[in-house]
C-alpha cells in the first residue's frame, strides 16, 4: 500500500509532512475533547457548561492552556527530580509515537509498516512505564498507590486487548493496518462480519482500551474520591497538563484503532475518505465520554476478576472462532 500511497514521493518527506499534520490534528482533537467533554457532561447534568470564553465556550481550551502555562512548576522536596520531570514528557511521547502508524485515510499515514498494528499496541503498552515513573517519583503515598494500580491494570488488560486485536489480524492475515481496512471492503466491517466473533471482539477491544487508557469505569488509578488524584497528585501547571493531554490522546488513539479494526476505517457508504474515519473515531470517542458520565467506577479487585475470569477466556474463544471461520471459508 505504501508504494502507491505516498503523497509526496520521497518516504522521508512524506513521513515528515504527514507527521506534522497528524500530530497537530491529534493535539487539536485532544484539546477540543476537553471542551466537548465539559459541554457533554454539563448537558447530561442539566447545566450549561463553559459559556464565557468565546461562543459557547469554544475558546475555553485555549484559555485553560494559557492558565496552565502561567502556573508555577512545583517539585516536591522529596521527589526524585530527574524522573519527576521526565515522566510527563514520556507520557505524551508514547501516544504520539503510536500515531505514526495510524492511517486516517488512504495514504494519510506517517508510515504503514508490515507490523503496523503490533507496533501501535506495543508502544501503547509502554505508556504504563512513564505513568508509573510519575507516581513513583512524586514520593507521595496516593501517587504511589495510583501508580501501583495503573501498573496492575495495564499489565492485566494488555492481554485481552491483544487477543481482541488478534481477531481482525487472523481474519485479514496481516498486521498492516492498511490491509486490515482493505479487508473490510464493501461494508463487511469486522464488527458485524463474520457475525458473532467480530462483534464480541469489538466490545472486548473497546472495554480493554478503556481500561488501558484509565477511563471510567476503569479510572481506578486516578480515583479522585479515594486517591486525591492518583499519579498526578503532586503535579502542577503545564506538566500536569501534559499528563492530562496524554490521557485524552490515548483515548482518541484507542477510538481510532477501534474504528480502523472493527468499523471499516475510512470506508463507508458513499465516497471513502478521511471524513468517515474522523466521524467513526469521534463517535467511539463520544461513547467513551457518555460511559464516563453515566457509569460508576469499579473496585480494583472487581476489575481484576473481570479481566482474568471473563475477558481473557472470551478473548481466547474469539481468536479460536475467527481462526475456524478463516479455515472453513
Amino acid at each position, binding site marked *: 500500500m505504501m508504494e502507491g500511497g505516498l503523497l509526496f514521493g520521497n518516504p522521508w518527506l512524506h513521513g515528515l509532512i504527514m507527521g506534522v499534520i497528524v500530530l497537530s490534528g491529534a493535539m487539536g482533537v485532544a484539546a477540543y475533547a476537553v471542551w466537548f467533554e465539559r459541554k457533554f457532561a454539563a448537558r447530561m447534568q442539566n447545566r450549561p457548561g463553559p459559556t464565557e470564553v468565546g461562543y459557547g465556550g469554544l475558546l475555553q481550551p485555549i484559555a485553560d492552556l494559557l492558565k496552565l502555562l502561567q502556573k508555577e512548576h512545583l517539585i516536591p522536596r522529596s521527589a526524585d527530580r530527574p524522573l519527576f520531570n521526565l515522566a510527563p514528557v514520556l507520557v505524551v511521547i508514547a501516544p504520539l509515537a503510536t500515531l505514526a502508524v495510524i492511517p486516517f485515510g488512504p495514504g494519510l499515514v506517517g508510515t504503514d509498516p508490515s507490523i503496523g498494528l503490533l507496533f501501535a499496541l506495543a508502544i501503547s503498552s*509502554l505508556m504504563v512505564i512513564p505513568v508509573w515513573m510519575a507516581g513513583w517519583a512524586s514520593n507521595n503515598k496516593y501517587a504511589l498507590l495510583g501508580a501501583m494500580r495503573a501498573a496492575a491494570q495495564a499489565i492485566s488488560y494488555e492481554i485481552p486487548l491483544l487477543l481482541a486485536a488478534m481477531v481482525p489480524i487472523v481474519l485479514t492475515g496481516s498486521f498492516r493496518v492498511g490491509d486490515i481496512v482493505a479487508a473490510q471492503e464493501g461494508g463487511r466491517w469486522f464488527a458485524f462480519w463474520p457475525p458473532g466473533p467480530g462483534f464480541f471482539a469489538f466490545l472486548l477491544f473497546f472495554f480493554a482500551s478503556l481500561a488501558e487508557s484509565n477511563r471510567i469505569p476503569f479510572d481506578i488509578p486516578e480515583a479522585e474520591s479515594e486517591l486525591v488524584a492518583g499519579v498526578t497528585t503532586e503535579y502542577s501547571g503545564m506538566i500536569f497538563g501534559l499528563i492530562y493531554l496524554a490521557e485524552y490522546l490515548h483515548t482518541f488513539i484507542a477510538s481510532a484503532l477501534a474504528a480502523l479494526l472493527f468499523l471499516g476505517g475510512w470506508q463507508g457508504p458513499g465516497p471513502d475518505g478521511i471524513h468517515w474515519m474522523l466521524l467513526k473515531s469521534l463517535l467511539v470517542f463520544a461513547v467513551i465520554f457518555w460511559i464516563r458520565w453515566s457509569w460508576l467506577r469499579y473496585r480494583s479487585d472487581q476489575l481484576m476478576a473481570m479481566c482474568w475470569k471473563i475477558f481473557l477466556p472470551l478473548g481466547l474463544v474469539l481468536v479460536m472462532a475467527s481462526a475456524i471461520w478463516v479455515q472453513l471459508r
Partner: protein
Amino acid sequence: MLEWIAFVILGLSLLLAGRMVVVSRDLVHSVLWLAVALVSTAGLFITLNAEFLAAVQILLYTGGVITLMLFGIMLTRRLATARVEHGSSGRVRGGVLALATFALVTVAVRQASRSGHLIQTGTLGDTKALGSLVLRDLMLPFEALSVLLLAAMIGAIVLARKVDP
C-alpha cells in the same frame, strides 16, 4: 546512510543504557535504564529488518517484563529503599571475562557468516515465514517451551500460597 546514522545512535544509546543499568545506585533507575536498553535493542532489530522481532521485543520485554520488575520493586519495601552498593573489586577479572565473551561472539558470527548459516537480513521481517517456522516446523520444541513456562507458573503459585484451602 540514514540506516547507518540510526544504527550508531541506537548502538550508543544501548551502550550508555547498559552501563547505567550496572552503575546506577538506585534500583528503580537501574530498571528504567534497562527499559531504555531494551527499546534500543528493538530499534537495532528494525535496522536489521526484523520488524516483527522488534515489536515483540517492545511488547513482551519493555511492556511486560519491565512493568513486572517495577511492580516487584514497589511491593517489596526492602527493595524500594535499597541503595545498591558497587564494589570495585574484581575489575580485572570482569574485564577479561567481558573481552573473552566479546571475542567468542565475534568469532562465532564471523564463522557462521562465512559458512552461510547466518539468516539473511530481511527474512526475519517476514512474519508469515517466522510463524510457519515456529508453529509448523518447530512445533514440538515450541510446545515443550510453553509447558516449561506453565510449570514455572504453577510452581510460583504453589510457592507463594501459604496455606492450602
